[in-house]
């Protein structure tokens, strides 16, 4: 049985990958996490969990030992995204890994890609968002390493990955509940969604597909949907009216509010610090995180500040095609968008959200 390392197994995509591999039972999965505390989710299974720092070739080499493939699903700030590439590739080489699957992002083409963009479109390192630029640099570094190394590389570029434990599901639910959700220009823009199980399906195909070494693949759901479609089932489940969300104009976009990723990063930083900093300092950090939320102002939507990232996403007019993945990986999304939404809402209930009007305090 093939042995596959999932680097970043505590993240939402890595975790779901482990879950599906375990469910299907066709590979020997080896979860790799950054520190012992991150083993809580993979340890729901009777699986050995490896600890490795994504910037340390030696610990990665030990973690990849005996693995045929590595799936690189780590999250991080732009610096980590770039700096982790070489250690991971070199460790994979030392461990005689055959193929590395790198989870990049469709945002290498920008949050609102131009019509006609596909995998053949040249990438620019100079993008308004640091995350996008970092993903471009990471892909390019992988390309250079592949030229001198033996490990095959397949790059996957999913769009907006939603589903259980996604910030586009749980994070949006939090925003709706705390009054900070909004849809720029009404959210009628194209949402390049992909349900997380469809992404894992693509990962499985990429592990074995012939003649895909060095190639990148855009990925999405089968259906063309809008941001309203993504938010609607979450609003309904929580008992909120989608049309009650603020709908600021694109012109109101500012790049001052921390992005969702930044806020998650801040929360993660807080989580990691909360045991070791004195309580008053923790309170200050918490307060700072709370300050990152803008107050709800539905009466005057024009004054509602929106991030550039969200504004671009909400007003996107083009969905990059996944035709190459279809052709060369055999990718055909097994889960419909509606089913993905239904499962996401079911997970919200599992996670403790008050769905379907069932307040936990009723």
């Amino acid at each position, binding site marked *: 049985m093939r042995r596959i390392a999932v680097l970043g197994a505590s993240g939402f995509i890595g975790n779901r990958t482990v879950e599906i591999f375990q469910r299907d039972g066709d590979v020997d999965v080896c979860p790799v996490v950054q520190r012992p505390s991150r083993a809580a989710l993979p340890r*729901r299974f009777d699986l050995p*969990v490896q*600890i490795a720092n994504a910037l340390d070739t030696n610990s990665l080499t030990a973690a990849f030992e005996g693995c045929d493939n590595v799936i690189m699903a780590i999250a991080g700030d732009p610096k980590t995204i770039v700096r982790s590439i070489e250690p991971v590739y070199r460790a994979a080489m030392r461990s005689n890994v055959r193929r590395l699957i790198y989870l990049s992002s469709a945002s290498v083409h920008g949050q609102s890609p131009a019509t006609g963009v596909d995998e053949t479109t040249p990438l620019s390192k100079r993008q308004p968002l640091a995350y996008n630029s970092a993903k471009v640099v990471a892909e390019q570094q992988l390309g250079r390493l592949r030229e001198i190394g033996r490990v095959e590389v397949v790059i996957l570029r999913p769009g907006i990955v939603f*589903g*259980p434990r996604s910030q586009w599901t749980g994070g949006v639910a939090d925003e709706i509940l705390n009054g900070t959700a909004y849809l720029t220009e009404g959210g009628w823009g194209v949402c390049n969604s992909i349900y997380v199980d469809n992404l894992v399906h693509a990962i499985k195909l990429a592990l074995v597909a012939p003649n895909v070494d060095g190639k990148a693949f855009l990925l999405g759901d089968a259906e063309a949907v809008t941001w309203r479609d993504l938010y609607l089932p979450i609003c309904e489940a929580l008992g909120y009216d989608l049309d009650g969300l603020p709908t600021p104009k694109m012109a109101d976009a500012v790049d001052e509010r921390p992005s969702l990723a930044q806020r998650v990063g801040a929360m993660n930083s807080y989580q990691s610090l*909360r*045991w070791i900093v004195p309580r008053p300092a923790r309170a200050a950090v918490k307060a700072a995180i709370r300050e990152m939320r803008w107050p709800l102002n539905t009466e005057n939507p024009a004054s509602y500040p929106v991030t550039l990232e969200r504004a671009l996403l909400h007003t996107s007019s083009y969905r990059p095609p996944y035709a190459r993945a279809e052709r060369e990986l055999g990718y055909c999304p097994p889960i419909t968008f509606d089913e993905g939404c239904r499962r996401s809402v*079911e997970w919200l209930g599992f996670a403790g959200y008050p769905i379907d009007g069932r307040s936990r305090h009723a």
Partner: protein
Amino acid sequence: MTTAQARYSSPVRVAVAGCGAVSRLYYAPALRRLEAAGRLHVEGVFDPDPKAAAIFAKNLSGPRTVSSYEDLLCKSTQLIILASPPEFHARQAIDALESGIAVHCEKPLATNVKDGERMVEAAAKCNRLLSVGLMRRRFAATRSIRELLNSKVLGDVTFIDVFEGGPFDWPVASPDYFTRSQSGGGVLLDIGTHVLDLLRWWFGEPLSAVYEDDSMGGVEANCRITLRFRDFEADIRLSRDWARPNRYFVRATNGWLTWIANDARNFSFGLHGANSAAEVLLHHPVNRGAEPTLGSVCPDFEFAFDSQLEATIAALTGHAEIVSGSDALTTLKLIEGCYATRAPMSAGWML
């Protein structure tokens, strides 16, 4: 003064086994403060990792670090604080008790009921104290809530809802922490020990429990427990996975009450139909003249460790309010009963 009181009027001689995160972050500051107050003296420290032991000992007044647990069991030691991994609690506690040393054991008491019973039996047989680190009972907030509920100001309880947890980030030393052999279980035995102890303390013994979790061959990261009390149910959701507000909600016939987990001195309550509710910051009461008034604000979370150890020291000489081994054993039995009747959590999206 009795002979026993005379025996402990000087600082109690304490040893510490296990210098991991809970010792480093919480016990060390409490021990420092109690040493400074002349209440105890830490004379020995053990951890299998000598570096961890040395770091822990550094900020105390010169305890010796020893290379084996047995070396702590010297005649002069009066109290051992067990903060080692739960799998070692039973053996280490029984060895200490049989050596004539009182034990303060960090929660959970043990990884299984059989071990817990052996510990309680050893304490009884050796006539030595066995207290357990369930420090939430030392919070001013949880004590006041208990008094408020018993006073029936809010009426009779009709429903309890608890969510506690979030992404797990306690600085454990190894992923082996997440094994039944080392820790006895997952989130239920970890956070659940605190939650169930608190609910038992507030409301008495539940009549029954229905339990489900998300273990798939390993240890659970999520679980749900429905406790049936005589007149109401408690719905408890624990997680090492995803954060929701960590809140205890109590609905009663006349009003309601909420408490944020681990908030040592605040809670909120209100009466049904009232157009205002109270957010309470607890103070110590003082008497100025004939009337009571507000004194200093009650201590925060960290000081519950001081208070807990103070109570254990007081219990060495006579009566003090501690969580006894047999009390903690009742919670452990409830937990083991949950595991024995476990059903998988409904998780359709996993298919």
